[in-house]
């Protein structure tokens, strides 16, 4: 009996992995965006940066042109692993890290404070049904959890104590989304076989999309033009 269950479980796992794979690819930046601007941070926050200039993060790309901070998703997809693991955003040197994030509806978005000073964490959603909130977070304060019930692209988090601190979370009603890393690459995992519309959205560079077919896995590269 025990071995039968083990066998069935093994079959189920194999069957499951056979019909779901990864969608991967890389986003490359084309053209030269306007130069980033230096943010006039206050002296207290400046000290935390140890002399490093704080710059805007509108276009972040590496030497090969890989464009970070693109939100990649399967438009109109359903399901995907419901994630109860929190999306973590840290506040460090009076900056939100990471700047761009993605999450699923209901998934906890946990904001930490690694700074020796206080912030207020103020999400400002624009979609009806997503609640605005504003919470104080003292130095060494407990992490704050937020969650949103409706899908919303680039939902803004801000700190009003430091009026240059922003982070964005794109909230999806499915689990098939990712944010490109420093090299512009992305990976959406556990995608069942089928045809999808793969969309890439950059907050400043705009949106590009492609029809893809997932058979075990799929790969798609994009370029985004600087505007």
């Amino acid at each position: 009996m025990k071995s039968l269950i083990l066998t069935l479980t093994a079959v189920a796992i194999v069957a499951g992995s056979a019909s779901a794979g990864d969608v991967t690819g890389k986003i490359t930046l084309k053209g030269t965006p306007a130069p980033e601007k230096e943010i006039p941070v206050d002296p207290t926050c400046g000290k935390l940066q140890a002399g490093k200039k704080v710059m805007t993060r509108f276009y972040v790309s590496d030497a090969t042109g890989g464009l970070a901070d693109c939100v990649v998703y399967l438009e109109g997809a359903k399901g995907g692993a419901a994630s109860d693991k929190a999306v973590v955003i840290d506040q460090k040197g009076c900056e939100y890290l990471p700047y761009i994030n993605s999450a699923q509806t209901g998934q906890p978005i946990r904001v930490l404070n690694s700074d020796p000073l206080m912030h207020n964490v103020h999400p400002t959603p624009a979609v009806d049904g997503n609640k605005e909130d504003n919470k104080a977070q003292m130095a060494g304060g407990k992490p704050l959890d937020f969650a949103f019930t409706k899908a919303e692209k680039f939902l803004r988090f801000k700190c009003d104590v430091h009026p240059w601190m922003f982070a964005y979370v794109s909230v999806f009603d499915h689990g098939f989304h990712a944010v490109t890393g420093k090299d512009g690459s992305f990976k959406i995992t556990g995608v069942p076989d089928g045809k999808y519309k793969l969309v890439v959205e950059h907050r400043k560079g705009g949106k590009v999309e492609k029809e893809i077919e997932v058979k075990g896995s799929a790969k798609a590269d994009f370029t985004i033009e600087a505007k």
Partner: protein
Amino acid sequence: MPQTAEHLWLHRFAVLTALATLLLIGIGGLVTSHGAGMAVPDWPNSYGYNMFTFPVSMWVGGILYEHSHRLAGSVVGFMTLVLALWMNGRPAAKWLRWGSVVVLALGLVASTSAKVKLDNVLFLVGTGVAGFGISFVWPRHEAVSPRLARFGLLALVLVIVQGVLGGLRVTALADWLGIFHGTLAQCFLVLMCAIALVTSDWWARLKAESPPVAVPAKVRRFLLITTLLILGQLALGASMRHQHAGLAVPDFPLAHGKVWPATDTISLETYNRSRNDHREFKPITARQIHLHMAHRIGALVVFGHVLGCLLKLRRTMGAAHPVAKAAGVWFGLICVQFGLGIWTVLSNKAADIATLHVLVGAASLVTGALLTLLTAAWSGHSCPLPACGQERPPHAPGAGL
């Protein structure tokens, strides 16, 4: 009105309260210009502290503006309370006494709750006891005038409403309440300045001597309309500021490169993507662009009307008449305000310029309102609206605001 030394001090105190109100509007303007309205998430507490015991070391960044605004608001609130009691005289001692009993009771109730911090309890109890005690010695004098006394009461009610509006704007996360908070502030300032004006000796002398020529009713009505237009323009401005979307139209004299800006979806997307500002405002919408354009048109309308007031007063009263001279100052203010509006756009909404634009707007409204009040009084008529009835002879009962 008896011109006693006490009356002189009442007038001085009213002027001081009006000045404090102007300063308060300036700090409030800085709060919104710096986008710091939510820098202190709680109210009436500040980061859990009683606002008067909130450590100075924590007054940093956006908190500095927001907290200063709250403290300045408390000062103006307190001054308004004193002014209202002063204007109402002996009968008001009763309110002070019972109001203090309520505050004291609140403090005692709060002391039984573990949620309320000790400094809040002490503050409520202390204020209650102090007010209760003071009510037995002050105010003991007669009310300055029954009508004026009512305006003192109105000021007190307005300042309380204004404080609560400001608090709700924070705790209810309601940006739109800021529009009413900003506009009511302007109306409150007008009331304070009017009180300061009518408690002055100068006003009393003016009421005693009737001028050789009264300002024609038509001109007075035009003054009132112009003043109301300015109030409307300030409300539009407050609506723009409390969208927290930065400049909906970033260029001048054109608007997004056109005489009338495009507001279709694609254009909006382009505007928002091309914004390169570390303040990362909310995305602009078509409505905000229309609001912005309405404010620009409003500026032209106000400019034309104030110029009209100046010309009409000069024609009917003569260029040397004090009222015509005051209208000249008013027109000057509008010109400065016009320039500041343009500068606000060209400076990409620099916080200090935008705040100065709010302050000169307030000064323009006050000048218009006081001029309207003055010409009405001069004509022996306390209300320039036709609905107020027929012209009353000077010094008629009821004309003596």
